[in-house]
């Protein structure tokens, strides 16, 4: 099963191409093809996770070019976990789209599969340039998906999002050019083995190029000075699209984790690129998300602010990147992705049912079908706010115990607890506005069974993460250990081949 590694990228790619050809085919055929591709991807990523949990890091060289050359895919435990998380989120998002919103614009399914392929590739690639290419694939698909369904608000938000990300792509290319110009390679494992050997004269340029790269990843993961776009963009996207967007910021977080742990290690040239300032910015992001949560006038914006808070929390962990912190982080990522994705989806669903009020947070008649929708909201809200007994509580407990060094401990605990308190307050207020009104409830609008299943799946994720907390956190610990050992990754990619001879260029 050596080709298994490629399948999570290949299946959605092939499906996207096929769906593009079948654009005039009946909707039922397109839907079943998209569903089959996503289910196939889910199956393959489960197999990949099972294979990787045995411990070895797998690498796959396209066209069998040996390691520092050629196009390389690498799966360690971290990559396998993120790919599985991607498909676990993509399935409910697709199910929600099947409930009707996929017909609002052309090519929805092809774009959706392209975005999934780009995300899977970004997690699996072993090469910085291919990381750029997969980033572009997922961004281009997300630009088009954001504009899916009409409306001036969407094109306007889409325009800002595209311009911002094009600047990010230009910076990414600058960083890649400088890295290739100084180190002579873009293969991640190769860079990791070269970084301790950087000659004195190149140190400044190498540090600058990695600083630019870090800035790009921080833009993708929406850290404070570059986070202002996020609530705006996420809250206007169509329901299934917004749910899938919940994993977009995590791509930046995981890429940054890979960069600091696998590539930098403790090479002296990369010391101090993150540490004094990233925790401060991350705490600022948590504060900004909390303030935005209080100021939100729509449920969609409130849900997007929750994404911001979770982004801040994750980046704080990445900044210190201790093995214990990383294992807590890897337990927290699935929880926060699925819960915020569910909340974004629910915001769209509730907006649809309230008619002219949309998802504005104003007094109005109660949302119909209180039991099901209110129940899903309650589960998601409890999970996100980090109240016991759901997974947010366990995740935050692990984060508190393990992440910060002693002198950061107080402010870290304060940030986590205070943002949790604020989330509880705001989410409870929203619940009473939406579900606790004396008037007669609005008539129930049928969502279609696949839509109900989608919300149900995302709401069930948090209780399941509690029920299976022991195996999940054991896997996260193993993944963090493997990541921090570094040698399994480097050995799997570079093998025991002698170091490549390089000419020293002027």
């Amino acid at each position, binding site marked *: 099963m050596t080709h298994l590694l490629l399948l999570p990228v290949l299946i959605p790619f092939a499906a996207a191409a096929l769906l593009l050809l079948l654009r005039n085919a009946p909707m039922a055929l397109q839907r079943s093809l998209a569903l089959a591709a996503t289910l196939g991807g889910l199956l393959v990523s489960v197999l990949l996770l099972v294979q990787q949990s045995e411990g070895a890091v797998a690498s796959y060289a396209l066209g069998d070019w040996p390691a520092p050359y050629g196009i390389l895919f690498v799966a360690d435990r971290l990559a396998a976990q993120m790919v599985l998380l991607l498909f676990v989120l993509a399935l409910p998002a697709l199910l929600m789209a099947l409930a009707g919103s996929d017909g609002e614009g052309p090519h929805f399914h092809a774009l959706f599969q392209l975005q999934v392929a780009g995300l899977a590739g970004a997690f699996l690639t072993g090469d910085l340039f291919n990381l750029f290419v997969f980033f572009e694939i997922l961004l281009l698909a997300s630009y088009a998906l954001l504009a899916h369904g009409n409306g001036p608000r969407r*094109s*306007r938000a889409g325009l800002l999002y595209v311009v911002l990300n094009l600047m990010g792509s230009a910076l990414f*290319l600058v960083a890649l*050019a400088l890295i290739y110009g100084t180190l002579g390679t873009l293969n991640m494992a190769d860079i990791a083995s070269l970084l301790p050997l950087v000659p004195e004269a190149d140190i400044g340029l190498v540090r600058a190029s990695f600083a630019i790269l870090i800035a790009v990843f921080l833009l993708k993961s929406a850290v404070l000075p570059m986070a202002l776009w996020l609530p705006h963009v996420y809250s206007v996207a169509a329901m299934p699209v917004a749910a899938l967007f919940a994993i977009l910021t995590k791509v930046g977080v995981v890429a940054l984790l890979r960069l600091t742990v696998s590539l930098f290690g403790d090479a002296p040239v990369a010391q101090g690129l993150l540490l004094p300032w990233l925790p401060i910015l991350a705490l600022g992001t948590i504060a900004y998300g909390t303030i935005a949560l209080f100021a939100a006038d729509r449920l969609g914006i409130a849900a997007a602010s929750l994404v911001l808070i979770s982004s801040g929390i994750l980046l704080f962990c990445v900044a210190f990147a201790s093995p214990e912190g990383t294992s807590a982080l890897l337990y927290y990522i699935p929880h926060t992705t699925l819960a915020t994705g569910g909340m974004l989806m629910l915001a769209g669903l509730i907006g649809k049912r309230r008619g002219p009020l949309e998802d504005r947070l104003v007094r109005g008649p109660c949302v119909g079908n209180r039991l099901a929708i209110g129940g899903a909201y309650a589960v998601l809200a409890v999970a996100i706010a980090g109240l016991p007994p759901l997974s947010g509580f366990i995740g935050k407990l692990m984060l508190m115990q393990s992440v910060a060094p002693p002198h950061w401990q107080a402010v870290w605990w304060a940030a986590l607890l205070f943002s949790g308190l604020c989330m509880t307050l705001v989410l409870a207020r929203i619940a009473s506005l939406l579900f606790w009104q004396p008037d007669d409830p609005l008539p129930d609008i049928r969502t279609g069974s696949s839509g109900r299943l989608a919300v149900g799946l995302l709401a069930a994720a948090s209780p399941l993460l509690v029920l299976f907390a022991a195996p999940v956190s054991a896997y996260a610990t193993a993944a963090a250990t493997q990541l921090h050992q570094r040698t399994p990754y480097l050995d799997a990619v570079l093998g025991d081949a002698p170091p490549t001879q390089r000419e020293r260029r002027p």
Partner: protein
Amino acid sequence: MELLLSLAVGLTIACGVWLVLRPRTFSVILGLTLIGYAVNVLILLSGRLGAQMPPISQKGATGLADPLPQALVLTAIVIGFGMTAYLVALSLRALGESGDDRLDNQDRNPADADPEA
């Protein structure tokens, strides 16, 4: 030659950044295109300049031109072209929907319009 090219790259990026900070979509798109050009030249530079370097191995040649930056820049050009095309289409749509090509007119009060407009 290196100095000249790096100055050109820096100047082009500076012009591009200034244009991107303008309020209207057309100048923003021009700015992004300029930045794209400059970045492509920078990628090509990362393979080092050399007039005597053959692209394919020849007898008697002292070295070879680095083929990788050329492959990278080709990919970057294609991606940049696609992105620009999409951005043009999207801004035309936004213009058609709201009758205004400003990037920042969320809830703009018509009274405080830009004097240059």
